[in-house]
């Protein structure tokens, strides 16, 4: 079986600065990590891999994204593909999904496509479902674990608002994963990092994936960001340090003064 895992490199910090002129976050000088949900997706793929299966990690980005893909190889992916072209820039989720679909078609046969539930930076959670729609395959969302693959069917445990559900689907399909609360991302050990350097790593551009250029980047995007701005900073709170009784009195005074009660 072939599993394709789509991963994204995201900033390590929550304290991103915004460039008001370009309506983009400033990424220069900001350290990056693999989107944690995407690492879960990769680990889900690794957990069900059997001998002879292939795991392909794929990401859209620039040469700096190689570090994320090398991490995927060190964690257990068999090959990695970086999709890097100026035309891919400014893609919204639909443009992103179109690029990934072209690359998936170029790879050829596949059985499962794994994505993280959403990304830590933009967090729209759209790419997985859009991939499924464009590829015309089923999708499972909020998958916490893949329990069984048997006779062309897959069974998984997925989160709901109330608890869990066990769901089944035919293959191929798209799975978007979400981590259980106990999830501890694996840390690649030294020997595997060293072995990863010898695994296949390719860089594909628009011509390589033979897609429709009008569907990539800003041209292929349905959504345009009109304005990107930070939420107003919360004012500093008041800490009441007195003993309990006078503290309650003071708290009441403040709440009444601010017309909270």
């Amino acid at each position, binding site marked *: 079986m072939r599993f394709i895992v789509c991963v994204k490199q995201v900033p390590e910090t929550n304290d991103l600065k915004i460039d008001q002129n370009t309506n983009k976050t400033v990424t220069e000088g900001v350290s990056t990590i693999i989107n944690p949900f995407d690492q879960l997706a990769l680990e889900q793929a690794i957990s069900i891999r059997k001998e002879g299966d292939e795991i392909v990690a794929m990401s859209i980005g620039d040469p700096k994204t*190689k*570090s994320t893909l*090398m*991490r995927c190889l*060190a964690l257990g992916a068999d090959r990695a593909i970086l999709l890097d072209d100026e035309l891919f820039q400014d893609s919204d989720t639909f443009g992103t999904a179109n690029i990934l679909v072209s690359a998936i078609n170029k790879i050829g046969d596949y059985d499962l496509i794994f994505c993280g539930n959403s990304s830590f930076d933009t967090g729209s959670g759209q790419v997985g479902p859009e991939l499924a729609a464009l590829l015309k395959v089923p999708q499972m969302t909020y998958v916490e674990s893949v329990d069984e693959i048997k006779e062309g069917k897959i069974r998984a445990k997925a989160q709901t608002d109330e608890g869990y559900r066990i769901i089944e689907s035919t293959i191929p399909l798209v799975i978007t994963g979400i981590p259980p609360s106990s999830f501890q991302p694996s*840390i*690649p*050990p*030294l*020997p595997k*990092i*060293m072995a*990863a*350097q010898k695994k296949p790593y390719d860089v594909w551009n628009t011509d390589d994936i033979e897609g429709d250029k009008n569907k990539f980047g800003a041209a292929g995007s349905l959504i345009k960001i009109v304005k990107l701005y930070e939420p107003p900073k919360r004012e500093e709170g008041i800490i009441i340090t007195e003993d309990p009784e006078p503290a309650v009195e003071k708290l009441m005074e403040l709440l009444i003064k601010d017309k909270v009660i």
Partner: protein
Amino acid sequence: MIEFTEEQELIRQSVSEFAQKRIAPIALDMEKNKEIPKEVIKGMAELGLLGCTADPAYGGSGLDAVTAGVIAEELAKGDCTGSTCVFYLVQASWGYLFNKYGTEEAKKEIFPKVTSGDWFLGIATTESGGGTDVVGGKTTIKKDGDDFIVNGEKMYISGVREAVNGGGGHVTIGHQSPELGSRGMTVFYLPLTSEGITPTYIEDLGREGISCGGFSIDNVKIPKKYIIGEENKGFYIIHEGYEYARALIAVICAAAGLKSLENGMNYVKERTVFGKPLAKFQEINFRLAEHYTKLEMLKSLGYEALRAIDLEQEGKGDRFETSKIVAMSKMFASDWACEAINDVIQWQGAFGYSRECPDQAAWRAVRSFSLAEGTREVMKMIVARELLGKELTSYK
């Protein structure tokens, strides 16, 4: 500035994640409990950090010195007590020596247990009468048929309890031909579980997660396979292990100092005095700039020293040039880091002096490194020897 490879950056990321998530939160507890938790040692082993300089054939990763430095740097940022740094650096440095000069049979026996974290591989050359003056040591090693008999004692040694209780031993040195002085010394591996070893323990000022102690050696028999390198050439061999450790110590000191400055910066930006942040006081921001500059210089020099070790291994370096740059890197490593951390303690006021503050633990740990693996004074002697020539060296 040294440039790191993609592979080294990935290794840095892995070790950083491990150190920040698994070590930093429990670092101060390691001092209270006087041990590195088994889960941490197991985690270090699973990551491939223990005995990482041994060849893959023996369970190591065959790392070069610069990469070993990257690991040391990230451990130092995560472990304010320096305990895991010592646990790591000793095994990396002396594992390197053992890998280079040890017998095939001994490496096959010992390394797999070291890299799995079951055994500890240490260094024991210091004696109660002195450490830096290796030739002045009293320990002897004598041939006895196919075996060797060792007598003497070692003192102020890291990891004694770990090797006595968990298994393993220490690389050490003794006089095989006392009449030949430095030309009659032999390096060997001494299992601390051997009959005739009696350990004693000492409370150290810092890095308390790893034990410190000594042991008497009373007619301990060791097999020939435990001899490291050529007999009577030990004095020359042992310095390669020291130098490896010294260069790692330079990087560890720089990283510990820079981490402490980071703590200090976070504090002085938030803490206000007389209506303005502490950071705005010139006394603080000038000191910060000075410490940062010194520590970055130190880190660069530490990596240059490690690179010199690598170049020498590739046949491109010079033995004495390596000794010089290594000594330069370690000479002020502890002093500069201690000065920086001491100021960070001062900036944090009473909290800085409390046991809750990670920086006081870092100061106590880093302080040890102007003594360990060759004193500050010996580093000066080595550099001066290379500048003035051996005939003008101060120890002859």
